[in-house]
C-alpha cells in the first residue's frame, strides 16, 4: 500500500459493494443454473411443485434430445431386451429408440454456418481494414455511421428483400446463402473493429519492412498480420457469437437443410408434449460454448459490443 489516498474507497464501502455485486451476480445466474440442472431432471421432476433443487439426476433429457422414439407393444419389448444404456432409459416409458433426432444435424449446421461466415468476415474484413487504415479511401470517415445505420434496420425488414433475392438465386435454405448473409451483416462490424486494432500498430514497422525490400503485400502478411493477431482473434469470436446466436434470419429464411439450432431448440417442445428436460439439455449444449468464449474474451468484450466506440 502506498500510503493514504483520498480516492481509494474505504474498506467498509468495499465490503458493501462486494456484497451487493455478489448478490446481483447470484440472482443473474439463477436462470442459467436452472437451465443446466433441468437438463438432468426427469420430465416428472422438471414440472414438480415446489420446484425441485434436489433430485436424482438422469440423462433422459439428453437421450430425448438426440433420439426419436416410438411406443412399442409389450410383446416386442419382452422379445427385445435393451442392449444399450440409452435404450434402457427409454424403456421406462415402453418406448424404443428408432433413430437420431434432428438436433445433431441442426447443431452441425450452426457450426458450419457460424465458422464459415466468421472465416469469411474476418478474412475479407482484415483486408479491407488494412486498406482503410493505411490508404486514403474516399468516404472512410462515414464508415462508422454507415455501419450503425445498417444495424438500424430490423432483421425482419432486411429478411423481406433477402428472401426474394435468395428465391431468385436459389440460395434459400442453403448453407452458402446463410454464410453470405451473416458475413454481410457481420463484415461492417469486423472491418470497423479490425481497423481500430490495425490503427494501433505503428506504421513505422511496415515502412522499415518496405525499405528492406518487402513488397506491400509481404509487409502486410509478415509484419501487420502477426501484430494484429489478438485483434483478429477477438473480432472472430464476436462474429462467431453473432452468427451462433442469430435467430430472426434463421427462422425466416431456413426451414430444413440449413436450419440452425436456435430456431430448432424451441420446437423440441412439440414432440411428445412439453419435454422441458430435452429443451434444457439442448440449450445447455448450445449456450456452453458461448459462455466459454465470453470468459476467454472478457478483456475485449467492451470494444466488440460497442463497435469499437469504447476502447478502454
Amino acid at each position, binding site marked *: 500500500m502506498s500510503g493514504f489516498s*483520498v480516492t481509494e474507497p474505504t474498506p467498509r*464501502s468495499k*465490503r458493501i459493494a*462486494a456484497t451487493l*455485486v*455478489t448478490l446481483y*451476480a447470484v440472482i*443473474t445466474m439463477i*436462470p*442459467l443454473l*436452472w*437451465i443446466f440442472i433441468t437438463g438432468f431432471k426427469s420430465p416428472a421432476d422438471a414440472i414438480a411443485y*415446489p420446484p425441485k433443487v434436489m433430485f436424482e439426476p438422469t440423462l433422459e433429457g439428453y437421450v430425448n434430445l438426440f433420439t426419436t422414439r416410438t411406443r412399442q407393444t409389450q410383446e416386442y419389448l419382452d422379445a427385445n431386451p435393451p442392449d444399450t444404456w440409452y435404450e434402457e432409459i427409454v424403456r421406462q416409458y415402453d418406448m424404443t429408440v428408432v433413430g437420431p433426432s434432428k438436433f445433431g444435424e441442426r447443431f452441425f449446421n450452426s457450426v458450419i454456418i457460424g465458422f464459415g461466415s466468421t472465416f469469411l468476415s474476418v478474412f*475479407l474484413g482484415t*483486408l*479491407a481494414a488494412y*486498406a*482503410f487504415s*493505411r*490508404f486514403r479511401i474516399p468516404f472512410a470517415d462515414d464508415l462508422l455511421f454507415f455501419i*450503425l*445505420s*445498417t444495424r*438500424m*434496420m*430490423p*432483421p*425482419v*425488414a*432486411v429478411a*423481406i*428483400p*433477402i428472401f*426474394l*433475392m435468395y428465391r431468385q438465386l436459389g440460395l434459400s435454405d442453403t448453407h452458402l446463402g446463410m454464410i*453470405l*448473409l451473416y458475413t*454481410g*451483416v457481420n463484415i*461492417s462490424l469486423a472491418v470497423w473493429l479490425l481497423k481500430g486494432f490495425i490503427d494501433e500498430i505503428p506504421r513505422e514497422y511496415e515502412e522499415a519492412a518496405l525499405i528492406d525490400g518487402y*513488397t*506491400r*503485400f*509481404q509487409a502486410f502478411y*509478415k509484419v501487420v498480420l502477426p501484430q494484429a493477431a489478438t485483434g483478429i482473434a477477438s473480432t472472430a469470436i464476436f462474429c462467431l*457469437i453473432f452468427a451462433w*446466436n442469430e435467430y*430472426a434470419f434463421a427462422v*425466416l429464411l431456413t426451414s430444413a437443410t440449413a436450419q440452425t439450432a*436456435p430456431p430448432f431448440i424451441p420446437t423440441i417442445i412439440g414432440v411428445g408434449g412439453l419435454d422441458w428436460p430435452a429443451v*434444457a439439455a439442448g*440449450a445447455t449444449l448450445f449456450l456452453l460454448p*458461448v*459462455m466459454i468464449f*465470453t470468459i476467454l474474451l*472478457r478483456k475485449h468484450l467492451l470494444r466488440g*459490443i*460497442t463497435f469499437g*466506440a*469504447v476502447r478502454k
Partner: protein
Amino acid sequence: MANPVDRVAQATPPTIARRVRGLSDRAIAWIFVAPTIFLLLAINIFPLIWTIKLSFTNFKANRIGREVKDVGLRNYERILTDSDIWLNMQATAHFLFWTICLQVLIGFTLAWLINRKFKGNDLWTTIIVLPMMLSPAVVGNFWKFLYQPQIGLFNYIVTFFTGAKASSFEMLGQVNLAPWSIVIVDTWMWTPFVMLICLAGLRSIPDYIYEAAEIDRASKIRQFFTITIPMVLPFLMLAVLFRGIENFKMFDLVVQLTGGGPGSTTELTSINLKREAFEKWRTGYASAYAIILFVTVFGLASIYVKALNKVKER
C-alpha cells in the same frame, strides 16, 4: 529462412512475381476493399433499394404470377392511419422506455459498485456479463418455462417472498403482466451491457480530479453530482443509443417468450412486421412498414447522436 512467404515467393515464377511486386498501393487498396464493398452492396444496399421499390406496390411474395400494380403512397397512408399499428408502437414504446430506465439505473449502480475494486470484482463482472452473450431466442424460450404458473421457478420465488399464490398469476398470460414479463427478461439480459460501458466511463475519470475536489473540500455527494455523473454521461448516452436501437428492432427474445400475446399486448413492431410479411404475405405493405420503421429509428438516432456530440464537447 523457411517461412511460408519466402517459400511462396521462391516458388512463384519470376514473371508473375514481378507483376505482383509491381502492384501499386492504389491497386492493393482496391483489391483489398472491393470484396467487402461488393458484399455490402449485395446484402445491405441492394435489398434496401428493393424494399423501397416494393413499398410502392401491392406485391405479394406468395403469389408470383399475379400482376404487380403500382399503388403509389397508398401503403404508407394505410399504415400511418391504422390504429392497430399505433397500438404496436405504444407497446414498443413501453418496452423501450422501461427497459432503458431499468438498465440505466441498475447498470450504473452496478458499475459504480464494481469500480470500488474490491477483491474478486473481475470474476463477478464476468459472471454478470454472461446473459447478454447468449442466444436471445434460446434463453427467451427457457424463460417461458420459468414463467409457467404453478410449476415455474419465477412464480415460486415471487410466492416465497410475497405470499401470493403461485397459480394466482400468469406472467405471460395476463394482459397487465405480459408487457412486464418481457421487460424483466430484457433487463436481466442487457443490464450488463450498460454496466460495462458505465464501468469504462468511470475508469476514464482521472484520480486527480477527485483529489482536487477533496482539497476544495467538496463533499462526496457533491463530487458524485459534479464530477462522476457529468463525466460518465457521454458513456451512458452511448449505452442508451445502442440499447434503444437494439430494442426498437427487438424480435427474437419476445417472439419466443410471448409471441406477441396475449392478444397483441406484447406485439412489438418487429413481430407485427413479421406477421404482415411472412404470414399474411403482404410484401408491398410490409416493405412500406419496414421503411417507416427504418426512417423512424434513423431519424431518432440522428437527433440523439447530435445531442450526444454536444454533451461530449462540454
